[in-house]
């Protein structure tokens, strides 16, 4: 039989639910099914499960349980953080600072605010995908009410200088939000060390269920709700709570906290993959800072080929990854993150992101390194841009200057 080996290298897209998490969710669904707002024993059991999960999530980021608001995911947490604080502080000022490499959950919230009378500064990043603190300093205004900079970028895995920015924000008395969806569980995240006022989380990136997340809101920070209804989550996020999801999130958060030191081991696999790719594939470059990078992220651009064709070919070999190519995005625009880093359209087109997880092994990496060169070779031989020895003086160079 010809069974294809399966290697999942798309953990930044989502992770498999861990067995312990699924078990806890099963209990929540079958035994703790009451409505946490009900007075009776069924309601109380659900309420207890909810508050336990809140503690588990709070503990993961060094927060108080009362500072955690459960949401339907990272997207809603970002929306609530940015729009909720902007609206609550609109009398103080109308200016917000963010970066050009944020997740669309954040960028699109900013777009909405711009339509509603706010002004937003999108900080550039350097060619390594890092925000420069000088640029932030230069962007500060009297009427700046909020700074929102992601902790770790989801595409290139770069770790932003959040502590430094947090200190500046605190000194100036400006609220500071960070999207920690891609950092939590992989590197230490502590709301006091980072000096953040708001922080977004998502369960499905840490081996928990999809459709559940949280916003940390520092005690005393005013946030206008985006949902209206009951009094759940201290009125900041009304609606009967997604108990199975939240319980699963709580369990995943507990495991993420305990297993954090293990994530460091993935650095060995990550570096083996990066070095192997750069060595075995000509005209291949690493995207994003090599050092200030989470242990799980590999992002390379392979020139003269297109990412979707690459992903399809890899999928036929059982390897799951993602790409910032325009052809893989619904909008047909290449990755805004790579473009912001000054990477040209054509090179963004051949970008390949592989994100590791706790179940990946050295054999997985060897398999990818064995299979990929032939896949690349095949696609390059089909590409009108690839001129073998002449690669260096290829027409692509001119194209790049046009973008």
């Amino acid at each position, binding site marked *: 039989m010809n069974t294809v080996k399966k290697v999942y290298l798309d953990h930044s897209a989502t992770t498999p639910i861990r067995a312990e998490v699924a078990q806890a969710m099963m209990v929540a669904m079958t035994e703790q099914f009451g409505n946490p707002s009900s007075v009776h024993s069924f309601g109380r059991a659900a309420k207890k499960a909810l508050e336990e999960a809140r503690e588990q999530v709070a503990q993961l980021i060094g927060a108080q349980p009362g500072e955690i608001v459960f949401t339907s995911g990272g997207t809603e947490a970002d929306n609530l953080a940015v729009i909720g604080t902007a609206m609550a502080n609109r009398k103080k000022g109308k200016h917000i600072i963010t970066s050009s490499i944020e997740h669309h959950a954040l960028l699109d919230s900013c777009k909405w605010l711009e339509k509603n009378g706010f002004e937003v500064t999108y900080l550039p990043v350097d060619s390594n995908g890092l925000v420069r603190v000088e640029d932030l300093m230069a962007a500060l205004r009297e009427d700046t009410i909020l700074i929102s900079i992601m902790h770790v970028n989801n595409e290139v895995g770069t770790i932003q200088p959040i502590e430094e920015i947090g200190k500046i924000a605190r000194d100036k008395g400006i609220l500071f939000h960070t999207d920690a969806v891609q950092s939590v569980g992989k590197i230490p995240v502590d709301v006091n060390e980072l000096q953040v006022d708001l922080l977004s989380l998502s369960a499905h990136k840490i081996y928990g269920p999809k459709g559940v997340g949280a916003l940390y809101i520092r005690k005393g920070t005013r946030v206008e709700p985006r949902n209206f209804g009951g009094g759940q989550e201290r009125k900041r996020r009304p609606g009967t709570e997604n108990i199975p999801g939240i319980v699963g999130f709580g369990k995943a958060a507990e495991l993420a906290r305990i297993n954090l030191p293990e994530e460091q081991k993935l650095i060995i696999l990550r570096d083996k993959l990066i070095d192997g790719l750069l060595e075995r594939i000509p005209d291949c470059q690493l995207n994003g800072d090599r050092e200030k990078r989470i242990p799980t992220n590999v992002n390379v651009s392979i020139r003269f080929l297109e990412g*979707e064709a690459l992903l*399809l070919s890899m999928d036929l070999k059982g390897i799951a990854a993602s790409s910032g190519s325009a*052809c893989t995005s619904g909008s*047909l625009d290449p990755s805004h993150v790579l473009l912001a880093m000054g990477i040209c359209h054509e090179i963004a*087109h051949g970008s390949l992101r592989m994100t590791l997880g706790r179940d990946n092994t050295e054999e997985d990496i060897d398999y990818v390194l064995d299979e990929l060169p032939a896949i690349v070779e095949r696609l390059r031989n*089909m*590409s*009108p*841009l690839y001129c073998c020895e002449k690669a260096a003086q290829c027409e692509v160079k001119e194209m790049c200057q046009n973008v």
Partner: protein
Amino acid sequence: MYSEKVMDHFTNPRNVGDLENPDGVGEVGNPTCGDIMRIAIKVEDNIITDIKFKTFGCGAAIATSSMVTEMAKGKTLEEARVITNKNVAEALDGLPPNKMHCSNLAADALKLAIDDYLAKAGQVG
């Protein structure tokens, strides 16, 4: 998301490569996503006797290139010239809606190759 036919043409593309001394060459860039396709033809007695393509693009772009070369080979110039992107997409059992533009690339590159041949042969197409 792709049909079996698309995957077949993607994994085993027909007529990939370059022609030595082609009679006509058509190259198009896709303004939507920035991809590029080149088709080269050999013509004898008004018939496309050989055809090759090279494509820098997504799975659909590669599959449509492959399909259009297969459809055009052995056809008269007139027959080949009226192949539309819709014909190509249908021959592949359809394309996802957001990938229809990729098939334009193939039909356009073929037309340009034929026009190039006609221009060289002194007959404006």
